[in-house]
């Protein structure tokens, strides 16, 4: 359900790390909570991101939701499809609707994140409250 090769944050972002590059997105749980996504605000290539700080927003009809970066680094790519097709975040949050790619300034930060198993447990516990 949640890709094993990703790591996860408590705010429902995922990151796939390849060496010192990370691809970041929001999880399926996040898109379900948000409902129909209508708008996405993302940084530009060259912008800095900082672990646990917001780098953009995802908006549904009803609400604005901040997205928090799992890691620190520099944005190297932004998924431009999402301007025209924000609904991709609902239909394919783990693949086609990746948000940004980042050059990691501190690859060790990834160790603080959750594995897919830990994330699934985290969601289950949240839902039972």
């Amino acid at each position, binding site marked *: 359900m949640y890709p094993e090769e990703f790591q996860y944050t408590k705010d429902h972002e995922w990151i796939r790390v390849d060496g010192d590059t990370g691809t970041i997105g929001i999880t399926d749980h996040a898109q379900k909570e948000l*409902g*129909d996504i*209508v*708008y996405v605000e993302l940084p530009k290539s060259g912008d800095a991101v900082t672990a646990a700080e917001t780098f953009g*927003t995802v*908006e*549904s*009809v*009803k609400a*604005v939701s901040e997205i928090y970066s799992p890691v620190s680094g520099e944005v190297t790519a932004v998924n431009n499809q999402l*301007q025209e097709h924000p609904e991709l975040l609902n239909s394919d949050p783990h693949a086609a609707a990746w948000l940004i790619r980042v050059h990691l300034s501190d690859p060790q930060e990834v160790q603080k994140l959750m594995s897919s198993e830990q994330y699934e447990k985290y969601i289950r516990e949240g839902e039972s409250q």
Partner: protein
Amino acid sequence: MATPAESGPKRTALYSIHKEAGARMTEFGGWEMPIEYTGITQEHLAVRTRAGLFDVSHMGEITVRGPKALAFLQSITCNDVARLSNRQAQYSALMFPNGCAIDDCVVHRMDANDYFICVNAANTDKDFEWLVEHNSAGAELENASSRYSQLAVQGPRAAAILSKVTGLDLASIRTYWFSPAECCGVAGILARTGYTGEDGFEFYFAPEHSTHVWNALLEAGKDDGLQPAGLGARNTLRLEAGYALYGHELDENTTLLEANLGWICKLEKGEFLGRDPLLKQRQEGVRKKLVGFEMAEPGIARDGYPVWIDDQKAGLVTSGSPAPFLKKNIGLAYVPAEAAQPGYEITIEIRNRQARARQVILPFYRRPK
């Protein structure tokens, strides 16, 4: 109609039905209500193209009866109650002395000595207390809210659907008229009123029949595509139609003239609470005005975002959202009166940037004739 969840928010009689239908619930005005079932956008479009079914049982009903009913209502509301015929309703407001509203409402006349007012859920108790306090005329007042469930069927197919489950000749009921009627075999009041900008009806009836009526309506509307719709769609629908929401476009510091509701203020009807400040304001002009706008560049204006004009913070967004049918991002805002005109550019402060918007003539959406 209230079934308290221990000491938490109130619930309508249909709470479990909504949960079973997979509704995402939210707290609104002291009530736990369905925000959406299948999705706000989908529900909104269903209402605009077919029909939606809303549980609006959280709304309040206050009855005003007796030989002093008319005099009392005239004194405490801004619209002219004397214009109503039997079984006719009017959009109105319950007044503060300063020309602002304690709530907006729909006043219904059953007959000369028998009226009821439909008021907002969040304000019901406060409204009733206010009416009691100002009842020097001696009308008979009752907060009858717990005796009514209310369901709304809204959309171009609403009349066709309801005609399957009522003997009432719906063609004989014009907009803002109503009648006692049986619907789905249950006695109640069927009113051609609503908050969506579409044709539609609101049915008031005893709460013990709620589940039956809800299910019977969905069954009757199956072939016409009737589906449940929640408060999320209710809000986007009323916004497209340019309708005020108390607490946003209206509050105790905003006069009815500022809110573009001069059309329900019948200042010539005689004395009423708040009339003098409105007369004065009509003479001198308003300082702020409610305007409609649509975004002129990417971005969504939200409730509470500042409005900038000529490089200064000058106003406030009262309601802002994507408009699912119009496929634009729209909003209502208060701006200084001199800046209130279509074409006059404004910007909306969306978090850390300024986004351009253009003022438009209201309503954003008008249903096809």
